[in-house]
């Protein structure tokens, strides 16, 4: 498989755009703050993008989720890149694949706090294009002018990793000449109280893979990448998607497989597709949520499958677990190491879980990487691994 990454952008609490994220990563500045989301008094930390509340002119498209997508799309050169491809190939030859877990449920939540006396939706919330799971793609097609196929993938926390696999397949069959893939999820009461009901939220800044980790922090993010078949665009970023793996745990809706069998499958598939050995992988951006179960199972699996030379980290202590947007956020962090030549450390790691022995440390490492991976695992036992390489 030969797919080039033409452009990419990310927006999260750790940086409004890729440039700002690079600075935060370099200085180990976390974007996590004490939870102050209106209507929620839960004792936890969150990765809030403050500028989202300034985007309030979306009319019938208004929702926090769409606002964060719009904000992210304004960053860097992503809008110009997409506009250029539309004028080159035609709007119907550009595809769109968005990943999200909340879609725009934030807006539905707000609508329910303002029902009229008879319990009906009030006028401003009668937004059929917003209150449905396809909302992120409907909105992005509207915003970008893309008229080719547009699909939303909702597989919880693997959603916006899987968009790369779907985008790559679309390109391979030639149904489009370019694909904008993206992910967006916003902080809302559903996810805060939902993860609280699973007793998974930490009252402290999260510490992935640490012996004393005590749960996750939620965050919000949007991210985009433009994909094309290799060699068709001379303005490529110099990074290629060379492999992906998609699998299921077949175990439990909200608990990972105890031996990580599904995760093992997705990682080995990605390696096979890229025709690479585990030893070829310089860096893995782990799913690393900071939950007791995930980090233990993922960590054990990594040390079984990869040699010590494969450096690993979780970057969730910078912006929290951004759920449906985590896949693309972390795919971008992983692929950007091919540009910066800096492997980010695993922030907030002090004492590695004593049951684990993988190559993970809090400090950064300067290294010219060739191949990097990222893992995303979601509810329903839904796993996705992506492998990016320096373009040949």
């Amino acid at each position, binding site marked *: 498989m030969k797919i080039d990454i033409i452009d990419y952008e990310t927006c999260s609490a750790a940086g409004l755009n890729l440039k700002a994220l690079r600075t935060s990563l370099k200085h180990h500045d976390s974007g996590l703050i004490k939870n102050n989301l209106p209507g929620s008094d839960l004792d936890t930390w969150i990765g809030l993008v403050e500028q989202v509340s300034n985007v309030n002119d979306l009319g019938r498209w208004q929702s926090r989720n769409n606002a964060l997508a719009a904000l992210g799309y304004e960053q860097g050169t992503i809008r110009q890149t997409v506009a250029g491809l539309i004028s080159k190939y035609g*709007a*119907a030859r550009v595809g769109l694949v968005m990943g999200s*877990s909340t879609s725009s*449920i934030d807006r*539905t*939540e707000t*609508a*329910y*706090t303002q*029902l009229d006396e008879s*319990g*009906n*939706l009030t006028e401003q919330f*009668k*937004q*059929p*294009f917003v209150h*449905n*799971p*396809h909302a992120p793609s*409907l909105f992005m*097609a509207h915003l970008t002018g893309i*008229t*080719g*196929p*547009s*699909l*939303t*993938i*909702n*597989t*919880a926390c693997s959603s916006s990793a899987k968009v790369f696999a*779907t985008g790559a*397949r*679309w390109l*391979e*069959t*030639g*149904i489009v000449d370019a694909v904008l893939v993206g992910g967006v999820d916003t902080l809302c*009461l*559903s996810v805060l*109280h*939902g993860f*609280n*009901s*699973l007793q998974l939220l930490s009252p402290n800044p999260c510490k992935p893979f640490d012996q004393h980790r005590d749960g996750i922090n939620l965050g919000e993010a949007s991210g985009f990448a433009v994909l094309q078949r290799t060699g068709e665009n001379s303005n490529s970023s110099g990074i290629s998607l060379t492999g992906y793996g*998609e*699998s*299921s745990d*077949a175990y439990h*809706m*909200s608990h990972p497989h105890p031996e990580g*069998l*599904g995760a093992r*499958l997705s990682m080995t598939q990605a390696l096979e597709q890229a025709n690479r050995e585990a030893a070829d992988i310089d860096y893995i951006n782990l799913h690393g949520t900071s939950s007791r179960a995930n980090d233990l199972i993922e960590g054990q699996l990594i040390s079984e499958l990869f040699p010590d030379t494969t450096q690993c980290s979780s970057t969730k202590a910078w912006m929290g677990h951004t759920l449906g947007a985590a896949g693309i956020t972390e795919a971008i962090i992983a692929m950007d190491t091919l540009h910066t030549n800096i492997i980010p450390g695993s922030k907030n790691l002090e004492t590695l879980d004593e049951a684990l022995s993988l190559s993970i440390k809090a400090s950064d490492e300067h290294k010219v990487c060739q191949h990097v991976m990222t893992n995303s695992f*979601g*509810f*329903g*036992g*839904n796993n996705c691994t992506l492998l990016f390489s320096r373009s040949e």
Partner: protein
Amino acid sequence: MQAKKLKCKIAGIGAWGSYFDSWQALQQLLGGEPLPDTKNKGPKPTIIPANERRRAPLPVRLAVESSWQATQSAGLAPDTLTCVFASGLGDTELTDYMCRTLASEQKELSPTKFHNSVHNAPAGYWTISTGTMSAANSVAGYEESVSLTLVEALIQCVTEHKPMLVTFYDAPVADVLKPILSNQETFAFSLVILPVDANIDGVEVTAEITPAEQPAWPALQSSSEYIASMYADNPSAKILCLAELIATSNGNKSVTMPLSQGTSVSFTRS
């Protein structure tokens, strides 16, 4: 690059709705048979282990029942199939429960309902129930859910040379959201789609994507009011135009569906 023709074989079908509990029963309704006197209760797919079934909401049970039927009719073990589950509306009863609870003073959510609220709950229950460890996708495309998902599944079948299970399901919409998402019908439909060289009998279908200006859904041949109402309001029931193509070998040879604002997709039987 010229788009590849997407050719595959449909080797198994499953269907479930308020007035039909199999593909055969649905075909009779499409053929003009009157509705049965009583609505179906359930479904209650026994393939889901009892411990998971008690937690499974209606959309999950719908999707699993119809998926199971399709794999049975194809004579294939479920765990050999890569799957794509699609719903235009998702589980609005759970959306309603969550938003109602969060708008109240007592905001504690049921952990079971929360984990069931993910759009990929049917994919999760299906893979757990059948021990499927292959890829399970879960997608949405609003009114174009059916065409987008068919294309997605065909592409995966052709590019990765994998046998696929594709399931569409949409349940009646919760009261508060009815004014904007009108569906009140229960509908699930599944297809087992195989690479064209598979050693199993099936209906050969080729899909072709072409540019189109504001394409629209085609009219059905069926004159049933019940079928027409599902086709109009239930995003998953849009598959009925392809179902008619498969059911009648001496009728139309081709059906064209809207895929996006600027494209449509035609399915042709060979």
